[in-house]
């Protein structure tokens, strides 16, 4: 293994899986964005390593990377389909409903919901990652949940 600056691996071990889970609703692009963020962090570790919250830097870069990537509708649809197939194999119909509903959210709402519920990040960390106030994050969470309730209700009624 190549020499890795002290602190990087600790940060990676504590952050990678959590962040990847938080952004997983975006499909394959999420993991690539997270990896790219860690690559950039390691390349710039002389600077990133001196920050108060290097993991926060990585989260911000990953989210920005994810939002910048213009994924085609087909690839996104394919990712969603893969997620759907994987879920069907688990025979958990409820998960399918929720998964489909989450995919209907706006990108910002998906990130907020993903980081909060998937990554388990505190509201403050989500806000810092998104460059928003905590109030704005709470608003997005509230709006996302209301939207999900409607979507799930439509699924059940339909």
């Amino acid at each position, binding site marked *: 293994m*190549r020499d890795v600056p002290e602190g990087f691996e600790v940060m*990676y071990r504590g952050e990678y899986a959590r962040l990847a889970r938080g952004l997983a609703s975006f499909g394959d692009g999420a993991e690539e964005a997270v*990896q790219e963020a860690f690559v950039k962090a390691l390349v710039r570790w002389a600077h990133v390593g001196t920050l108060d919250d290097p993991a926060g830097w990585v989260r911000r870069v990953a989210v920005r990377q994810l939002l910048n990537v213009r994924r085609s509708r087909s690839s996104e649809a394919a990712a969603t389909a893969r997620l759907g197939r994987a879920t069907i194999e688990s025979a958990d119909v409820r*998960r399918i409903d929720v998964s489909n509903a989450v995919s209907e959210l706006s990108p910002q709402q998906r990130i907020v919901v993903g980081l909060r*519920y998937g990554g388990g990040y505190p509201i403050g960390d989500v806000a810092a990652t998104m460059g928003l106030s905590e109030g704005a994050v709470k608003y997005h969470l509230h709006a996302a949940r209301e939207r*999900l309730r409607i979507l799930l209700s439509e699924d059940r009624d339909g």
Partner: protein
Amino acid sequence: MDNDDPLDDALTDLLGSHRVAIADEDRTYRRVVERAHRRIVGRRVARAALATAVVATIATAAAVTSAHHTAEVQVRAPLPATIGRAKATRECPITGVAPNGKTYGTVPDDPTGRAKTPDYIAVKPQNGGTAGYLNKADMLRQGPQSLPVYACDLTTVVGHLVSGIGFVPLPGTSPPPEPPPVTRGLLGVQIADPGPVVIQASGPAARVGLTPGDVIVSINNTTINSASALSAALAHSRPGDKIRISWNDTRGQEHTATVQLAAQHAPAAVPTQIPPGVSVEHEATGVVIRDQTHLTIVAGCDGSSVRVDETGTEVRVRVAYADPPTSLCPPQLLPATLHSPLGARRIVDATGVTLLLVDQDDRCTPIRVNGRCDGIVSGVVPGRQP
């Protein structure tokens, strides 16, 4: 999360279930480290290449300057910035010229009166915008990591050349972006009056069979009886345009063909600097300046390119001429050979044009000439007396 909302449970259950296996995490970790390492190494290589290029450039510039009082530098740095060239001559103040040939400013005369040296190299970002100058002394002293880039007055810093990033202009210092370069169609012939007779054919012209000695008769059914008429006929053409050209070969047989013009950069101001009777055609490989006397300038000193700045006051060319001169420019010109540039007494040129004359040893000698298009030239070759 922290309440009993079943939706929260569902979201946590779904989104938190994306488990990343430890094995995958380790594999990903190794991949991340490898990618970062490659990127770091790549940056070091690029930085070293830039340093080498800059030092080599400076060395070249200094060598050329000491020999000819003229220096030309052109380096494409491995950065999103292009280092242009700076020139200095005995006669001219230092002028920064960007790679596209645009002159951005003039350095004031050296108050010491000594021969100018290229202390500055022009730089500009590849995406257009601000141009400026790097100071050679700064390069040598600081290396290329982060160099101040000066404005035309050479005192105002307008940005920095940062290794790995390129030329970063300071906010508010960017002039309006340059318009895209204008191009016109290239036929690919070098011609001479009377006729006009083809001296050399290349590109599209050569592809349809034009050869030296042929006489062009018409373009798009418009009779062509001089070099200037041909230039006028092609003046508004565009790359990709198709023209119909007719010509007579050396046996008098007439030919007609349709030619698709290639692309070339339109000379911005040079034609206005060339006296009447002289035709100029710029090609990717050279410049031709010709009239009814006997000079043809056929290619760049490096044999591959010629750059003409937009002021049109300097042309760097390889010179070929007919020896002995004849009344009709012959196809058997001796390319890239000039035995005695001043002794020939047949050099025809625009006033104030600087020529790079190529001797038999393929050494380039700059000569500043002042003359008229009637073939009378005076000039000074460094180290010689006219």
